[in-house]
């Protein structure tokens, strides 16, 4: 039996009716059509599905859609500023070659957004701890670390702060 669900996704209010067993990740992908959030595992290890729920990073495969009732969800599609352009993390991942196949990238971007919102100047160790819930098989993480450092520096120097994107409207 579908249940009603009201929430905000990337700044837009939505009302849907969903099955209780529908996971948030499948809701975002299949109901909202936001396929940037990926599924890479079935045991909550890979982090490809990471989104922000009221600003906090959440593996959207670990949560039912109905548990997000009333929440503000930000997915990778909502990360860039509404007026166009890229979020500093997106720019940094591009410039530092922080992705190869790109499958893990949305999850890393969202987890890193949350990390920098909390800690604008993380050490390498803090970056590692902040992103240890995300797996990448292609890059060896070296350039992801670099990208996060570069984005942190850019944001401290006044590039669009992550906080606006975290709130997502």
């Amino acid at each position: 039996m579908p249940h009603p669900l009201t929430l905000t996704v990337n700044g837009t209010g939505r009302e849907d009716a969903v099955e209780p067993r529908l996971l948030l990740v499948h809701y975002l992908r299949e109901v909202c059509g936001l396929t940037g959030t990926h599924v890479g595992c079935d045991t909550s290890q890979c982090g490809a599905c990471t989104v922000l729920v009221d600003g906090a990073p959440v593996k959207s495969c670990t949560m039912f859609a109905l548990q997000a009732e009333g929440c503000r969800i930000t997915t990778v599609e909502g990360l860039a500023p509404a007026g166009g352009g890229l979020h500093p993390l997106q720019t940094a991942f591009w410039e530092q070659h922080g992705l190869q196949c790109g499958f893990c990238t949305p999850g890393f971007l969202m987890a890193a957004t949350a990390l920098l919102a909390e800690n604008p100047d993380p050490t390498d160790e803090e970056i590692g701890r902040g992103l240890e819930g995300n797996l990448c098989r292609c890059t060896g993480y070296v350039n992801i670390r670099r990208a996060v450092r570069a984005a942190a520096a850019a944001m401290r120097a006044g590039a669009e702060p992550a906080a606006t994107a975290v709130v997502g409207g």
Partner: protein
Amino acid sequence: MAVSQMIGARIQRREDPRLITGHGRFIEDRTLPGMVHLAVVRSPHPHARIVSIDTAAAGAAPGVLAVLTAKEFHTVLSGTMPVAPAFAPDKKYVPPRFPIAEQEVCFQGEPVAVVVASERALAADAVDLVHVEYEPLPAIVDPEAAMHPGSVKAHTDGPDNIGWDTTFAGGDIEAAFAKAEVRVKERILQQRLAPTSMETRGVLAQYSPFDERLTIWLGSQNPHFIRFFVSMSMGMPESAVRVVAEDVGGGFGGKISPYPEDYLVPAAAKLLGRPVRWIETRTESIQTTTHGRGQVFEAEVAARRDGTLLGLRLTQVLDLGAYHGTFGAFQACAGLMAGGVYRWEAVEARSVGVLTNKVPTDPYRGAGRPEATHVCERMVDRLAQELGMDPAELRRRNFAREFPFTNNFGLVYDSGNYDGTLDRALELADYPALRERQAEARRAGRLVGIGISTWVEICGFGPAAPTAGATGGIALVESAQVRVLPTGSASVFVGTQAQGQGHDTTFAQIVADTLGMPLETIELRHGDTAEGTGFGCGTYGSRSLSVGGMAVQQAAVKVREKARQLAAHLLEADPDDLVFEQGRFAVQGSPATGKSIQEVALAAYGGSLPSGMEHGLEAVSYFDPSNWVWPFGAHVCLVEVDPETGAVRIEQYVGVDDCGTVINPMIVEGQVQGGVAQAIAQALYEEVVYDGESGQLLTGTLLDYLVPTMNEIPDMTLDRTVTPSPVNPLGVKGIGEAGTIAATPAVINAVCDALSPLGIHHVDMPASPDRLWRLMQEARP
């Protein structure tokens, strides 16, 4: 060639804008109207006879459209799944494999039925309702035990478990060993690994009964091969089948060969008359996507006391799993490459492929070459230890130095400078200081080790003659089509298929350079068999640039030469008097008189062509290299082992590689970083484990199969030397597998060096805390 602007430039990737904004096109992102979902019923037993399959309950479950077994699939599919000759053409036993089991299941996870339902969750629910009655049979798990006559058989109908038994003889091994002043011997394991691309496999198929056409979308490293095999099995003209791979979330060898689902999903689409999609779960992926490595080596080295290498003798026992992987015998090349970067009087390698009741093995990043390098580099270090010689010095004493260099099996290394990469790596690592630091640490009772690995690989598959034999008919040449449109932009079609390697960027750089066109006006197309040339062989074996990229370059040169003819006609000049610079043909001596490539393109579709010239500005090229290419390098690793816990910490990592001419240094560095990370993963963390008795997979999730996180992978100091290859016009080699080949021995040599004060000479992989702790317990008095 004109002065290069694009080749060698650190250009940001053109693939990235869609991928960093969530607009990639991966297989699970593609849906079709009316699409239904397939889920696979898999054997829970490693070996069993199928007594009966009762589909009634599943068929009656909500949303279920069909439950299909081998019986139904036989009406649409015929033949058996392909097995290439590769490096073991004389196969002994090749169990026939239909994409779905009929009477006997031979590994856990083998398909026995499929359910098709209106929703994915309903299909998954109904899988549990298919009742299969099995009669369990004894399973054979250990490949060495499986070699014994009288062993349990992986297939009850098989004569035994021997898939092949081939010996490569390179020189007089007895004579070499007769001269030995010192011998070292070691048994070296290569554990089974799961490729674990972050995107699992997936297949979507649509069959149109009215015009009898089939379209398959899937995550693949080589869509043309999939079309080749699936069209044959379905009895369809190859031209009526279209295979499309869009963005592919990593492959690493796990998306090369055709899989059962590549046949079952299209067949189900035909049987049901609906688009059908299957997406592999991660558990299914670890359970059924081909594994890599899974080998045991026995190796012995003969040498003189001064460190001169004489002979290398080895046996590779390769765990095939329950069936031959399509390209599984490729891994037998480990024997042919086991001599590495050194001069030997003789090398002899025996390779035995053995069937067991496990997932088939097939190429995984490096496929045979990491194994060769690991054996060779471990043995050289063992010898250095035995002789009390510095491992760098021992290596230098034996390097091949004259190129082209012909190895013991007649393989010709195209170019190299092994001293150059080793010297640079030792310089970057400050080797003398590292040794001092180690000595100091040892005095303080700490376990610090330094590992060196000097490597070479064979890659860039082609050439046509040997590879056509190895695949069973199709030569691994590569094709490209370059088409300049009337308004001066270009479409470039290639037969390779990137999974993160950045071909959209690097191949476009080659075209931009050759045709003098802006990068933004060049569109790279790959992955769709309905576009471009007749055949492409895909992306694996570090072949895309040195074979596919060269096809692109050659096609672009053909276009440029046609454009030159036309420009000469338009300018009323002799073609030989034209200079081509910055995308413009100008008459020598009067630079103001010229035509841009864009003007020439428009003219190529116009009304004033010279007589005899056909319209259009496009060309096709197939590139067949004259030899393989042979990248090489030297890696140095510093580790510290915790004497209490056995945990290994990588303190420093240096890699100096040489892949000839570099098109885009940023992408080359990324490939090395990712490759080194996968090698560290093998050296320290990952292993597919089956229970030795029951044959049950014990590492079926990412909880148990330890893919490293960022915390486990250190920053690396990377550098390059450039020794161009004489095999192709740009002098390029390959770099996709380099890190994976180089780094496992560097790490393990460092771990062994760290533990050597305890009298530990060899450590197998993964060098996990548990394994090291035990070794240290045994070694301590």
